[in-house]
Structures are given as structure tokens and as C-alpha cells.
């Protein structure tokens, strides 16, 4: 057992876990942040994507100990109170989800894509960059629409700040 200290959604936490604990297990089982999902458990599907120090990573492919001292953001950390993050709102408005299982990972990857590319996003880039996230319902079409919609909303929001 080791104590892992990290910041999750702005809150400093210290968690006692076995050394073999994955970051996703720490989030779901110790912190009850069950918005982050485990889909394939083989690093392919992306349902477990969270941000570690501002970068999208697969939390099923990182030991909890590797996140020591890191700043982690999960799907629960995106909204401001009752106000959805622009990416969440765009997924709702564009019907970017059906069963919803992949959605937390999709949204965390999508926010990361917009952060990295800013206003230079086009459909091809979005489709290419979502390679690490698998959805079995939507056929991706409305997810891509949602990401492009959110990218323009986030650009407007940034310009207004």
C-alpha cells in the first residue's frame, strides 16, 4: 500500500491504494467518480480518458502512483455548477450520444483536441484525432458535428474573456 497525493477536479486528495492500482480505479472506486468509464481495459476504447496535467490520457493505462502530484480533471470537473461545459452542451444539442457509455471519454478527448488545435479544427482532423475513442452507437457522425460545434463555441467564449 502507498499513499498517493494528487489534485482531482481542483480538490487535493490523498488516497491509500495498492501499488498495482490503476488511475481509473482510484478515481472510480476510491473517489466514487464513476463518470470515467472502463470499456475495453486494453487501452483501445478511450472510455477512460481523463486529463492529467492538461493532457488527455487513458486512465486504465496509468498506475495511480504515476499520478502523484498531478492535476487530474475528469468528466465531473468540466461543468461550472449547473452550466454545462460547451463540449457537453454541444454533444447534447447535436445528438452526439446514444447509450452514453463512451461519452465521458469522447468529451475529455474532444476538449483536449480543441485545446491543442484551437480554431484550426476541421472534420478530417477531428475524425483522425478521435482514433483512440470507440463508439458503437452513433457512427461518429454526430460526435464529429458536436466537436466542431463546441470548438466554435469555445473560440467565441475565449474571445469574450
Amino acid at each position, binding site marked *: 500500500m*502507498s499513499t498517493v497525493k494528487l489534485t482531482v477536479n481542483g480538490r487535493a486528495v490523498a488516497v491509500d491504494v*495498492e*501499488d*498495482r492500482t*490503476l488511475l481509473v480505479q482510484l478515481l472510480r472506486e476510491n473517489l466514487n467518480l464513476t463518470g470515467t468509464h472502463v470499456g475495453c*481495459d*486494453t*487501452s*483501445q476504447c*478511450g472510455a477512460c*480518458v481523463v486529463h*492529467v496535467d492538461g*493532457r*488527455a*490520457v*487513458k486512465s*486504465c*493505462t*496509468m*498506475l495511480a*502512483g*504515476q499520478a*502523484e502530484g498531478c492535476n487530474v480533471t475528469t468528466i465531473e470537473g468540466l461543468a461550472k455548477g449547473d452550466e454545462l461545459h460547451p463540449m457537453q452542451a454541444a454533444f447534447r444539442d447535436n445528438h452526439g450520444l446514444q447509450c452514453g457509455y463512451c461519452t465521458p471519454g469522447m468529451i475529455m*478527448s474532444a476538449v*483536449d*483536441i480543441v485545446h*491543442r488545435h484551437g480554431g484550426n479544427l476541421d472534420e478530417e482532423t477531428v475524425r483522425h*484525432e478521435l*482514433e*483512440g*475513442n470507440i463508439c458503437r452507437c452513433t457512427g461518429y457522425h454526430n460526435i464529429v458535428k458536436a466537436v466542431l460545434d463546441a470548438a466554435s463555441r469555445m473560440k467565441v467564449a475565449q474571445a469574450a474573456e
Partner: protein
Amino acid sequence: MYETHYHRASSVDDAAALFAKGTDAKFLAGGQTLLPVMKQRLAAPSDVIDLGKIKDLIGVEASGDTLTIKAATTHYDVAQSDAVRKAIPALAHLASMIGDPAVRHRGTIGGSLANNDPAADYPAAVLALGATVKTTKRSIAADDFFKGLFATALEDGEIITAVSFPVPAKAGYAKFPNPASRFALTGVFVAKTKAGDVRATATGASQSGVMRVPAIEQALKANWSAGALGGVTISANGLLADIHGSAEYRANLVKVMGQRAVTAAG
């Protein structure tokens, strides 16, 4: 995953000391291969020594005709590095195509080389560019480093610290990715050194891991152009065959990716 002991190394010396104390220790860099393998219970190290937070192992340096990438630099950082893009754009391009964005944010060049997956991208570049693998014990020429499937010249406890690439006159990489895993079904790296020598390598194709492709090298030495590879025949002997493609299919991919790599190199 079986039980293990996790250690965060503060320096390369600390890592070597921690490794020596374990009964069956493994080094952990980005973990994008080791952790999935441990989750499948195909590996059960007694101790996992994390190299990911050793500052001396992260970064890119360009000096004269040499580009040095430190071992724990992530694929994302290599792809984004101005120094890499300027010195060897083909290498930045290669890094930008490994796995998916989340994998590139964690995976490292040193981890990829130490693992030497037969379908990994970096070995193709390291071998084609005639790079030197720097370790805690010595410098290893690329020609002596790769020893077949998942095998390298690294000794127990030896840690890759950096890779030095001579800046080539021209280089290009083209890969046909497996649509599910993004690993190379076949990838070909071609390079022309400043002295005029030509080297070409293929990954994902051979049963014994990354390989030189003499037929492509000879054709390009005579005439550096995609068209020069039109008449080249690649033997299917010793090539991988699986549900994704036969040996003959991969042999043809070596030629086609070779042509695309030359076109990309210009």
C-alpha cells in the same frame, strides 16, 4: 494485474539501485505497453521502477548535425518539437502517427525502443537513420541494438538515456496502420545520409522485427525516386502472416510504403 511494488526513481542512478534491489524488477517509462501486458497477466514484475519523472531523461537537443532525443520524451513532445521538425521532419511525422493522442501523451521513445515490438514505429527510424542508442553503460549503434522480436542488446538493469540521430540529407516514413491498433501493418523508413549513403528499413513486416530492405536501398542508391522502386521485388520469405495480412501482402506493402516514403522525403 498481479501484485507489484511501485517505485518512483528520482534519478537514473536511483533507478539502477532500485532495480538491483528487486528480485524481478522492470523499468516503467510511459507504460503504454508494459501496463497492458501486466493487466493481461503476461508480465508480473516484483517491482516497477518509474523513470517517467526523471527530468534528465526528458527533452530534445539539436547541435550541429546531431539531433538528440532523451529517452523519456513523449511521442507528443517529439511530434511537436520545433528542433525535431526542423532537423528530421520525418521523425516528427512518425511520432505524430504512433497510436492515438492519449497514447502519444504518455508513450516514450526509450520505452518503444527497449520494448522493440516488431510493429513499433521508432525502431524503423532508429535503424534507417543509423542512430546511436545511449544507455547508462555505453553507446550502442542501431545496427547492433535490435536483436529480433521484443529483444535488444540491453543488459539487465541497463537504461536507455537518449537516442542520437545524425541529421540526414533526406528522410521519409510511410506506414499502413492496422485500423484497430494503429500499429504498423507495415511501415517503411527511407533515409539518405549527407555522405550519400541510402538506408531503408521496414517495421511490422518481418517475423524477426525491424529489418533493413536491401532491394529498396540498392534501387534508391542508383536513383532516388519513387519510380525507381517500381521494378523492385520484395521476397515474402520470413515475413509475418496473420489474420490482418499474408506474407505476400506485406511484401507488396513494403514496396508501396517504400514508394510513399520516398515521395514524402522529396
